[in-house]
């Protein structure tokens, strides 16, 4: 299957899932209250995150075909996203400042004067376009990694906590082993050994990131299984799997959500460091910062590239951090600190 078809399907699934989840939240008193109180506390941050998600979706829906894309004769045979189409064919030859009508060096007139809200980069690409495209990459890194790490952590954490004994010993050993290796080094090593790609970056981030949540979910499961109604269910002969799926996992749902949000910013910031080491993900903000860092010593200085990437990154992390904080206060006052 072509990558763009897959991407479109994923978008469709995500939207359906979002609609479904909204339904669930609306029906459950607890969840809708939690969300309302979150909304009251962090309106701006939630809107900001919504904006990033929207941009990422716009960059994920793509199809083949359409008119000529500037000088590029290949583009019309390849899938272009809505975002790409909005910025198609406005490439310049080299640097231009935000909203300028001439090139930054040399002062030759631009092909599309005044169209570049955030200027253009060394190769004349629109910086706003590049910065917006980074949103998809960042959400992809955070999302895909969590998608690998959280189920893994739940699987190990819950089974260790619920069954105890040998399984618990084994999981605990794996956790201590992974946790005792220096995180960043392990991350780098994994990527170097697996080869550089978006997927291997996410796997490496997941392998280094799942331990913390595994510990929390193990602890929480131990607490839950001692609760009276679960003991009662066991005594009544309810199957183990049924207990786990009906009684334990739903009670971990709030932890999953909080972990996801708290993990997210760390993942995106880690990717920026990986980019600096040359093993990041193509098109990320980290990569833009890395490319732009030498530009600070150009004279006259080229500031719009690094500021665009830097503030896009900062904005997302800030919003996520604020929401994460509030989420923790709203949904869970205590448990998670132990996982840090």
């Amino acid at each position, binding site marked *: 299957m072509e990558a763009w078809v897959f991407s479109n399907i994923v978008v469709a699934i995500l939207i359906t899932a979002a609609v479904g989840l909204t339904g669930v939240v609306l029906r459950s008193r607890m969840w809708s209250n939690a969300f309302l109180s979150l909304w009251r506390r962090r309106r701006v941050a939630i809107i900001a995150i919504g904006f990033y998600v929207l941009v990422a979706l716009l960059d994920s829906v793509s199809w083949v075909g359409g008119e000529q894309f500037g000088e590029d004769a290949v583009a019309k045979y390849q899938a272009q996203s809505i975002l790409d189409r909005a910025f198609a064919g406005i490439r310049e030859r080299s640097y231009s400042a935000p909203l300028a009508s001439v090139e930054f060096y040399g002062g030759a007139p631009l092909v599309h004067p005044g169209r570049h809200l955030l200027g253009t980069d060394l190769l004349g690409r629109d910086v706003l376009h590049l910065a917006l495209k980074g949103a998809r990459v960042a959400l992809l890194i955070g999302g895909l990694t969590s998608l690998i790490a959280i189920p893994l952590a739940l699987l190990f954490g819950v089974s260790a906590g619920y069954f105890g004994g040998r399984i618990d010993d084994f999981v605990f050993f794996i956790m201590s*082993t992974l946790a005792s290796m*220096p995180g960043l*080094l392990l991350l780098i090593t*994994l990527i170097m050994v697996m080869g550089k790609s978006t997927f291997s970056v996410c796997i490496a981030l997941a392998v280094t990131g799942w331990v913390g949540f595994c510990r929390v979910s193990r602890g929480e499961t131990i607490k839950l299984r001692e609760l009276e109604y679960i003991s009662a269910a066991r005594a009544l002969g309810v199957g183990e799997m049924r207990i786990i799926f009906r009684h334990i996992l739903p009670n971990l749902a709030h932890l999953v959500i909080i972990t996801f949000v708290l993990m997210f910013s760390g993942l995106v910031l880690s990717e920026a*460091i990986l980019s600096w080491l040359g093993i990041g993900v193509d098109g990320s903000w980290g990569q833009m910062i890395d490319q732009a860092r030498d530009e600070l010593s150009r004279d006259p200085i080229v500031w719009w590239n690094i500021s665009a990437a830097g503030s896009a990154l900062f904005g997302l992390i800030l919003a996520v951090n604020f929401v994460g904080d509030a989420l923790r206060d709203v949904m869970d006052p205590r448990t998670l600190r132990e996982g840090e």
Partner: protein
Amino acid sequence: MLAYVIRRMAYGVIVVLGVLFFLFLLFFTVTSPDDVARKALGERVPEAVVEQWKVNHGYDKPLFPEPGAWTDNMLVEHYRRMLTFDFGRSDADDTPIADRLRAGVGPSLALTVPLFTFSLLASIPLALLVALFRDTYIDRMGVVLCVLAMSVSILLYIIGAQYLIGRLLHWFPISGFDADPRVVVRFLALPLLVGLVAGIGGDVRFYRTVFIEESNTDFVRTARAKGCGEARIMGRHVLRNSLIPILTQVVLAIPFLFTGSLLLESFFGIPGLGAITVDAINGNDFSVLRTMVYIGSLLFVGGQILTDLSYGLVDPRVRLE
């Protein structure tokens, strides 16, 4: 007590053995020694030279124990070398890795120890202050500032500081290092400043949570009800009772004194272990990388054991069993 210590240490040893096995899988089965040899020697070398190189580095043996080579294989060799701290020579340039570690540990500690001390000295009082003023605008501003500081990528801090302080203001050298005590402070000032600013947001926020939680416990409430001054409560009761989480944080930071300054060292040209690691990454020098991960986890496990044991010292409520 003694039984606990022994059990704790035995578990530490098992974890280290596990780490070593994981490293073996990563570095020997996923990447082939031939690749490493070619990288080190260049591609135009005859096969015989590659073979000789593999012999010199001990990469010519069978990977796992097999009939005829129960002890003479790379798995056993790997354990033997790592456990006896015989790290051998670098894949990339054949220098003894132990020499490099010795040369790198000084500059690394010169940066990380002051950085660590200053961060503690700055973040604990600040966190106490913020916790003392909790639910006032000082607290709210403090938390917002912390989150702001945490949300900036450390790359931006480094680049910004080099540009502003080094280049425009001429306060300190932009980068570099010299072990000469007459000049070493000049070089460390800028990375210290950056490390401090980059880390302080997270630290203050963490300690604030610790303090606030502790100040909500029953006996603190009792002290407060008895009319104890708030600052006195903070200083006496809360701080003392927060020692466990603080201690955990502190001891667990020890391995990061050693490996944690990957970025600072590289950007500021400090020839420490972090910079050596980054060089190893850029040069595909797996032997150095392997050693670094191993030593990092060794220190971490050691630190953890120390933490567990020292709990008993700071908190009589914890009994070691």
